[in-house]
Every structure is written in structure tokens, then in C-alpha cells.
């Protein structure tokens, strides 16, 4: 055992003295997490800064029922200015369409909503007499998210008008069929008026921000974007960290130190056990450093300690087993670098290391479960949301199964190579 530890300690010290390797293992994941975290608003939330929207309303309104006039454009402006949406969009009124467009051109707003003069007549006009018209959405092409949000809100409002109009026309059609044409027009106008006074005026369109949740699981808190990204980056760079250390088997073979070790009375299985241990210990240390750094630099709440420890150990086992498997399949350091990078990148893309696991759905969620890192990331997400060991049983067992298989195949191949 002491010889295994001696080999592991020797490799760990060598790694800690290797500045490029340290940068790859520790600095890169932290830097990427910080960069991406800040890009998405930073800190502990997924919040996106409010989209600035310019609005001009040229709608003059229309008579809806006897003695009742309504302004559909005003309703849309009201929706956009709804208190429920204050965190999503900030509306500024413009006096003309030209002024609204200019604010977009000048980069002062992400989009402009231009409401035409005949909007109410188009909506409340009866039958085929209603003129066709459209609300114009003028977008800054470089701010697609803001444009999409605005389009969604305005679209929802218009959908409500169109739905009410369709319902009114249906009622009018029914009355006409019964030979009561005069009553039909009245019915349509009454239906529209009721919509305006009820659903429309209530500004029923709203957007609710909601953090992703794991299916069938109670989520008690939101997960910060930096934490999600750092978890992904940590596992991704653990693969590379493990690869760097596992590669020393090939490096030592070529440098002559491994054959020399084999001439000592230390059994070969002890020597390989020491090398394997050094890979595991190194990535474990790497993970712990990243977790601690994430806690103190970014204030990430990783969750319950026992669950985090279990996930970290399993992640280290997966990274070690995979790296040893890759190294057992190659002959040169160059092959180890190239093939290893390819394997880890593909796994990271499939497993969701760059996208997070919670946002995945449908086929991609299933694809993620084909990879050990996908399971680990889902487990991490659950623990960061307050889950415990009981919630992540499969997220531990499945990757552990992967690790055992990787490790077993690697041992068989190394035994054959160094028999």
C-alpha cells in the first residue's frame, strides 16, 4: 500500500509542479465559468436584463357598441407596460413610427412596436368590411432575444383580439343563418365589447419567469447559471486532468522509468495500481479545489455535503476510468492527446456539459443519459436545487457502472501490454 501511495504522491506532486497542466485543470474551468456566468447575467440567477422597447400608438379607436368606443392599440400598450412584465421589458413611448424606428437604429432600444391607425377598426369591424392591418415590430437584428420577447408579448395580445373576433363572427354567422341579420351585427359588436371590457382590459397576456425543474421532483430553490456552468466545466476538465495524469503511463514507458519500475521488486499490479490511484487522487483534488473555489469566488451553493461528496467521488471515478481506458488504447502521447480530446469533447457535447442538463428536453435529455457525465450533471443539478442522496441514487449508480466498466477494460488492456 505504501508503494501505491508513493507512486500516487509522486505523480500528484509532478502534476502540481506542471504549470500548464494546472492551468488546464483549475484555471480554465473557473475562467470559463466566470466568463459564461457573467455573459448570462452573472451571479446566482438566470435573469436577463430587461429589453428596451419603443412604442408608438397611432390607433384612433373604433366604436364597439352603442355609445362605446375602444382603442385596441391602447390595450397592447397597456399589456407591454404591465407591472407583471417590468422585469422583462422597459417601454418608452414615441410620437411617431419614424421616431420609434430611429430609436432602434440608434441602438437605444432592441425593438419598436408600431401600432397602425386602423388597428381597432380592423379588429372591431364587422364581417368583410374590416380593413386588413398589421402591427409592425421593428427589431435590432443583433438583439434577437429582446426582439423575440417583444414579438411574443405582442403576438399574444393580437391572438386574443383575433380569437374574440373569430368568436363574434361565428356568433354573427349563426344569427344570419337564422334570418336575423340585424341582430347578427349587434351580437358581434357585443362580443367584442365584452372581450375588451373583460379579458382584453385585464391584460391577460403575461410572461412568467420559471426556473427549469427536474421531472417529478420538487425543486426548492433556483440554480445559479455560474454554478450550472461550473459543474459542467468541472466534469469536462476532470476528463482532461485525468487524461494528463494517465498519460504519464505512456510518458514513463517511453522515458524508461516504467520499465525500470518493473525491474524493481515492486509487483507490476502494485505499480499499475499506483498509477491508477494517482489519476483518481489528482482529479479528486482538482474537483475539490474547483468546488471550494466556486463556493468562495462565485458564492455557489453546491448543496448538501454528503451528496456533493458522493457526486465528486463518482465523477472522479468516471474521469479516471475513462482516461485510463483511453490511454490503454493508444501508444503515443500524441495519440493520447488527440484521441482523448475527441472522446471528451463528444461526451461533453452529448452529456450537456456546455448547456446544462436542466434545460434539456425530449431527445436531447435521452441522449444525455447515454453518457456518464449527463447523469452526473443531472445529479448535480438536483443537489444544487436542494436534493439529497436519496434523490440522486441513479445519478450515482449509473456513472459508477460506467466507471467500473472503463476501469475493468483498461486493466485488462494494461495487463496484456505489460505482461
Amino acid at each position, binding site marked *: 500500500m505504501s508503494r501505491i501511495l*508513493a507512486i500516487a504522491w*509522486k505523480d500528484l506532486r509532478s502534476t502540481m*509542479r506542471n504549470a500548464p497542466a494546472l492551468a488546464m485543470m483549475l484555471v480554465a474551468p473557473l475562467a470559463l465559468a466566470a466568463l459564461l456566468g457573467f455573459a448570462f447575467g452573472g451571479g446566482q440567477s438566470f435573469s436577463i436584463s430587461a429589453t428596451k422597447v419603443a412604442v408608438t400608438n397611432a390607433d384612433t379607436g373604433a366604436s364597439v357598441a352603442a355609445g362605446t368606443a375602444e382603442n385596441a392599440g391602447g390595450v397592447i400598450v397597456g399589456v407591454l407596460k404591465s407591472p407583471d412584465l417590468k422585469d422583462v421589458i422597459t417601454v418608452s413611448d414615441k410620437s411617431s413610427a419614424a421616431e420609434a424606428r430611429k430609436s432602434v437604429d440608434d441602438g437605444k432600444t432592441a425593438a419598436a412596436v408600431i401600432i397602425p391607425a386602423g388597428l381597432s377598426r380592423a379588429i372591431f369591424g364587422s364581417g368583410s368590411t374590416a380593413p386588413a392591418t398589421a402591427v409592425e415590430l421593428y427589431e435590432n437584428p443583433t438583439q434577437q432575444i429582446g426582439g423575440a420577447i417583444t414579438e411574443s408579448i405582442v403576438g399574444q395580445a393580437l391572438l386574443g383580439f383575433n380569437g374574440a373576433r373569430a368568436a363574434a363572427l361565428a356568433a354573427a354567422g349563426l344569427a344570419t343563418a337564422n334570418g336575423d341579420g340585424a341582430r347578427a351585427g349587434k351580437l358581434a359588436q357585443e362580443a367584442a365589447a365584452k372581450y375588451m371590457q373583460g379579458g382584453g382590459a385585464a391584460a391577460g397576456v403575461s410572461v412568467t419567469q420559471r426556473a427549469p425543474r427536474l421531472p417529478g421532483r420538487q425543486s426548492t430553490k433556483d440554480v445559479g447559471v455560474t454554478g450550472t456552468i461550473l459543474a459542467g466545466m468541472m466534469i469536462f476538465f476532470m476528463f482532461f486532468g485525468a487524461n494528463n495524469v494517465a498519460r504519464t503511463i505512456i510518458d514513463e514507458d517511453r*522515458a524508461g522509468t516504467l*520499465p525500470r519500475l518493473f*525491474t524493481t*521488486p*515492486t*509487483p507490476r499490479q502494485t505499480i499499475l495500481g499506483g498509477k491508477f490511484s494517482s489519476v483518481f487522487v489528482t482529479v479528486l483534488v482538482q474537483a475539490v479545489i474547483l468546488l471550494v473555489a466556486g463556493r468562495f469566488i462565485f458564492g455557489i451553493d453546491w448543496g448538501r455535503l454528503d451528496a456533493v461528496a458522493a457526486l465528486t467521488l463518482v465523477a472522479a471515478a468516471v474521469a479516471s476510468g475513462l482516461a485510463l481506458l483511453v490511454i490503454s488504447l493508444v501508444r503515443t502521447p500524441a495519440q493520447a492527446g488527440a484521441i482523448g480530446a475527441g472522446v471528451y469533447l463528444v461526451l461533453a457535447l452529448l452529456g450537456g456539459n456546455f448547456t446544462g442538463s436542466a434545460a434539456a428536453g425530449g431527445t436531447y435529455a435521452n441522449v444525455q443519459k447515454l453518457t456518464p457525465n449527463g447523469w452526473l450533471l443531472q445529479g448535480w443539478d438536483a443537489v444544487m436545487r436542494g436534493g439529497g442522496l436519496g434523490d440522486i441514487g441513479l445519478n450515482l449508480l449509473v456513472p459508477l457502472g460506467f466507471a467500473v466498466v472503463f476501469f475493468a477494460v483498461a486493466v485488462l488492456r494494461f495487463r496484456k501490454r505489460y505482461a
Partner: protein
Amino acid sequence: MLWVTAAGPSVYKETSAPTYGEGRLVSIVEVQGLRKQYDPPKGVLAVDGVSFDIAQGEIFSLLGPNGAGKSTTISMLSCLLHPSGGDALVDGHSVVTDAQAVKEAIGVVPQDIALYPDMSARENLLFWGKMYGLAGEALKTRVDEVLELITLVDRQKDRVEKFSGGMKRRVNIGVALLHKPKVLYLDEPTVGIDPQSRRSILDGILALRDQGMTILYTTHYMAEAQELSDRIGIVDHGKMIAVGTNGELVKIVGEEAHVELSVDHSLEGMVERWAEVRGVTTAMIDEDRAVLLVQDANEVLPRLFETAAAAGSRITEVNVTEPNLEMVFLHLTGRALRE
């Protein structure tokens, strides 16, 4: 006792434990028909039935050109390679069936520096000491002793990567001495180092022999083999072609001297003419020179000049060497040792 096999059938052979000096000595290494073929059945036959013994306290050198099979032989005796045939007993233990016991008895100094360059000399020795089963105070004490032995006490905390080639070689040897092995294998330990470091290493090896250590040494430097060895085994193409003391081996070529001649033109024609000269036993071309073995250089040299003059050639350089291992190798293989 001398034994020789030509590059083919045996001329005469003696495989019993060696005797030299004062009476018969006990063999600590006994190699019998050792054979190694890579990727059989069609792969390279690197070692082809090598047999020899090494007596306790003896320096035994394997002398041969690069690719002769010296390193492969050492690898098998180190239990690093599994023999394709034959066996060897080291301190009474078979390299085939009792590798663990063999490894405890040997120290191996590989041809290339096999150290961790990012670790200091002391850290290297401590690490390798643990691999040899040392621990605690015994390990620290032994590391101190070895640092004294390789005269690197004052540089023990420096990283090996900062050392000169000679210093690295010394650490490389020091590692193999940590557990006080019964037999020390040194595989070309002086390749690529300066004369001063080489001298230091050779003196160190002689000192180890004087302390009773058995040493198996491989080299392609004839002078080293001559200076160090109690006995020498000459290997070529995986075969042991001669074994004996330096004196015994040199007697193979008798009193013949080695004469190298350069001429201004027609070297091939001159070699053919010189081969006919009385007193010349062997004549061949080695690169741009004629190499002759002659019975008495003082008598034969004037005849060689006369023959050249008669052929219209002018001798531009002459080099006469008394009988040595190079000539033995030349005699036995028809090739120079450096080839």
C-alpha cells in the same frame, strides 16, 4: 576458461563455472541457452541461445556492436522480457519462474537515463528506494550513503533536469545501488558522457567490484571492456561468439598486429595485392581504409609499401595497433566492432 564459437558451428566450448585467478569461484549468474524472438515465428531473433556464467564478485562484460543483443539479454536477466527459450538463474532463482526473487537480488542501470527530471536527486533516490522496499530511517540512511557514493551530496536538492549528463548518469547508477543488490547490471552506462564523467563511473564500478559486488556490464567500447572486465563475452547477431579473459581472447588472434592503411587511389586493387603479401593473414576494406592483420608488423610493413609502389599507389596514412579485442572481433566476424 576460454570458449569460442565461430559465427556458425562451435569451435570449442566450455560452459562450466568460470575459473580464473586463484581457483574456482561460485557462479551467481548462470545463463543457459537464453533465446528471445520478437513476434514469433517470423520476428527478429534478437538473442539466439546465449549461455554464460558469472562468478560472484566478478565483472563480466558483454561486448558487441549495437544491435548485437546485449540489451535484450539484460532485459531478460532483469525479468523485463520473458525469454522465448532457455533460462537463467540469478542468485539461484530462475528468471522464468521466480522473477520476484531475482528482482530482489539485482540492481539495473538502464542504458538511457531513467529518472524523474522534475524531482531532485534526493527525491528520486527516496522514491526508488521505496520501490526497492526500503522505508523509514533505513531508507534515509541509505539515500545519504548513496549520495556520498555518487558524490552528489551538495547537489542533492537540485532537480535532476538541471544536472549535466555525467551527474544524471551517476544518479542513474545510484538508484540501482540503493538496496545493495548482489548483482548489478549496467547497460552501456557511459554512452554520451564526457571523458571525466566516464572515468569517474569506471572508477566507481571498479570500487564496487572491490567491495564484492558482482557486475554484468554491457558495452560496445572495447577499451572499457578491456579495462574493467575480469571476463568478457563477445556477442554478435544474438550469439555469444567468444568468452574469456582479455588475455585469453586476444590470444585468438595470436600475435597478429592490426594495420590500417590509406592510399591515394585504387583501394580495392591494393587490398587484393596486399592480401597476397607474405605475413598478411587477413585483408579487408573498412570504409575508406584497408585493414590488415599481419604476423609481424616490422617485417611486413616494408613489403606493403613496396607492393603499393609497384602498383603505382601512394600510401597516405599508416596506423599499427597491437592485438586487442577489436582485432578479435574482426577475426571472428570479419567486421570491425564499430560497425
